[in-house]
C-alpha cells in the first residue's frame, strides 16, 4: 500500500501546509470582511466584500488617505536602495576581487562584520546621526541607512560569485589592450548579471520591508513608507482592522511576487553566500 507507507509524509505535509497558511488565510479573511464586522466569528467571512480594497485604493478613509503617496515613497526608497547598493557593491567587488587591491581581504572582513551585527542595534545610533546630518524625515535618511546595511552583504555575496569568474578572461582582455575600466564594463559586468539580480532583489525587498528604521526616521504622515503606515494603525484602540489587513495585502503583494519571480537567483545567492559547510 502506497498510502500506508507514505502516511508520515502526508502527516508532516499537512502540518506544514496548515502552519504556513493559517496567518495568511486569516489576513485574507479579515481583509474581505466588511469593516463593521471585523470580528471573525467563523473560519469563513460571512459577507465577503472588496469594499476594504476599494477604500484603500480610493484613499477614501482617513486612515488610508495618504495611501498613494506612501506607496510612492516605498517604491522610491526601495528602488534607490537597490540601485545604489548594486553600484557600490560592484565597484567595491571589482576592486577587491579583480584588481585585487591591497587590503581587500580586510575590507571583506569589515563588511562581513557589519553584516553580522543585528541591524536593530544600529538603529538608534543611526537615527541620532541622521539628526546630526539634518536628514531626519527625508527619504534619503532611510535610503542611506538601508544602503549601509545592504552593501556589506552585497560585497560578501559578490566576492564569492566573482572568484568563480576565471582570471584568464581579464588577462586575455588586458593582452588585447583593454583598460581596467573596459575590463570592468565588458568582461566583468556581463558575467555578474545573475548575482546582481539576486543582490538587487535582496536590497529592494530589504528596503521595502523595513519597519524599525523607517519608523524612527520618517515622521510626516504623507511621506511615510507603507510599512510604517501599517504600524501606525496600532496607535488607535479601535483600529479599523479590516482596512489594515486590506492595506497589508496590497503592501505584501509586490515583494512576494518579486521574490517568487527571482527565487532561483535568490536561493543560489543565499546558499552561496551566507552559509556554506
Amino acid at each position, binding site marked *: 500500500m502506497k498510502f500506508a507507507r507514505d502516511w508520515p*509524509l502526508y502527516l508532516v505535509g499537512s502540518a*506544514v501546509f496548515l502552519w*504556513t497558511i493559517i*496567518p495568511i488565510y*486569516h*489576513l485574507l*479573511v*479579515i481583509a474581505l470582511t466588511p469593516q463593521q464586522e471585523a*470580528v*471573525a466569528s467563523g473560519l469563513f467571512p460571512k459577507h465577503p466584500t472588496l469594499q476594504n480594497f476599494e477604500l484603500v485604493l480610493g484613499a477614501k478613509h482617513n486612515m488610508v488617505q495618504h495611501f498613494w503617496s506612501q506607496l510612492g515613497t516605498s517604491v522610491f526608497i526601495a528602488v534607490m536602495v537597490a540601485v545604489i547598493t548594486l553600484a*557600490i557593491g560592484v*565597484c*567595491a567587488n*571589482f*576592486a577587491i576581487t579583480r*584588481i585585487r*587591491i591591497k587590503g581587500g581581504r580586510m*575590507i571583506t*572582513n569589515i563588511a*562581513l*562584520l*557589519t553584516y*553580522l*551585527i*543585528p541591524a*536593530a*542595534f*544600529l*538603529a*538608534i*545610533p*543611526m*537615527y*541620532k*546621526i541622521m539628526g*546630526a546630518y539634518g536628514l531626519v524625515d527625508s527619504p534619503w535618511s532611510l535610503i*542611506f541607512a538601508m544602503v*549601509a546595511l545592504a*552593501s556589506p552583504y552585497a560585497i560578501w555575496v559578490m566576492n564569492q560569485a566573482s572568484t568563480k569568474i576565471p582570471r584568464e578572461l581579464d588577462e586575455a582582455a588586458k593582452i*588585447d589592450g583593454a583598460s*581596467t575600466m573596459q575590463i*570592468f564594463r565588458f568582461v566583468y559586468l556581463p558575467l555578474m548579471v545573475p548575482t546582481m539580480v539576486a543582490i538587487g532583489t535582496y536590497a529592494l525587498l530589504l528596503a521595502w*520591508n523595513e519597519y*524599525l528604521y523607517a519608523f*524612527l526616521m520618517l515622521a510626516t504622515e504623507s511621506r511615510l513608507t507603507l*510599512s510604517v503606515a*501599517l504600524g501606525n494603525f*496600532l496607535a488607535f484602540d479601535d483600529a479599523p*482592522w479590516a482596512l489594515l*489587513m486590506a492595506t*497589508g495585502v496590497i503592501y505584501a503583494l509586490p515583494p512576494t511576487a518579486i*521574490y*517568487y519571480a527571482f*527565487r532561483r537567483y535568490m536561493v543560489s545567492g*543565499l*546558499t552561496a553566500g*551566507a*552559509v*556554506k*559547510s
Partner: protein
Amino acid sequence: MSSVALPAPAQAPPKKGLSEETFWGIVLLVPYFAVFALFVVFPVLYGIWLGSSPSAYRKLFADPVFASTIVNTIVFLLVAVNVKMLLALGLSAFFLQEKAWIRWLSVLFLIAWAMPSIPTILSFRWMLNPEWGMLNALLFKWFQIEGPGWLTERHYGLAWAIIVHIWKSLPFWTLILLAGRMAIPKDLYESAAVDGATRWQTFGYVSWPSLRGLYLTCVLLSTIWSLGDFNSVYLLTGGGPIDSTHVLATLGIRYLRMDQVDVALASIIVAMPAILPIVWYMMKRLSAEHTAD
C-alpha cells in the same frame, strides 16, 4: 585594435606613483568607504559617546524592566533558535523527498519568508485578540473554552512572539539545511542502505557528520539575528503588558520614546560583550570557509 599580437613591452608599466589598476581600485572603493564611514563608523562612535555617562548605566541597572528584559531575551533565544533549527533540520529531510506534491509544498512553504513580516505579524495580533480574535472565537465555538488573553499575559505574549519569529524564519533555515543535505553525495546513502543501516543510523553516520558544521554555523547566525528581531516582539505585544515582554532589540526603543537617549544607548552597549564575540567568531568562520573553496 590590431589583432596582431605585438611583443609585450608595447606599453611599459608607468612606474610613477600609482599604476592604472591601483588608481581605479581606490576610486572604486571610495563609495563604499564613504557610506561605511558616514553611516556605520560615525553613528557607532556617536552612539558610544552619547551612551558614555555613568548615570545612564545606573538608571538602566536600577530599572526592573531591564532585568526582566534580559530574562526574556535569553528565553527567546534559547527556545526560538533551538526549536527553529531542529524543525528546520527535520523539515529539510522532508523536503528532500522527490515527489511532485512535496516540491509544490516547498514553494508554498517559502511564502512566510518571501512576504514582508508586518502584515502577517498584524494578522497574528488580531487573530490573538482575546475578545475579537478568531482563535478565541473558534475555541469557544468548537470547545466552549474561554481562551486566555494571549497577548495580555507575559508568558503567552512571549510564547507567541517566539512562534511568530519561528513562523517567519523557518523557511530560510530549512532551505539552507536542504542545500546542505543535497550536497551530500548520494552514494554514501546507497552504501549505508546496502549495509542495512536503519533510518537513524543513516542520519547518525551519514547525514549528521556532513551537516554538523553547517548546523553550527546556522545556530550561531540565527542566534545573532534572533537577538536583533525587533518586529516579532514590538508589533505583536509592543513590549506589553506593562513592559513585561521586552527583549533587548525593543528595549532601546522604549527608552528612546521616554526621551532617555543615553539609557537607550546604554542598553545597547551593555549587550555588546555578549554579541561581539559571536559576531567576531562568525566573521572568522565564514571568512575561513570562503577562502577554503
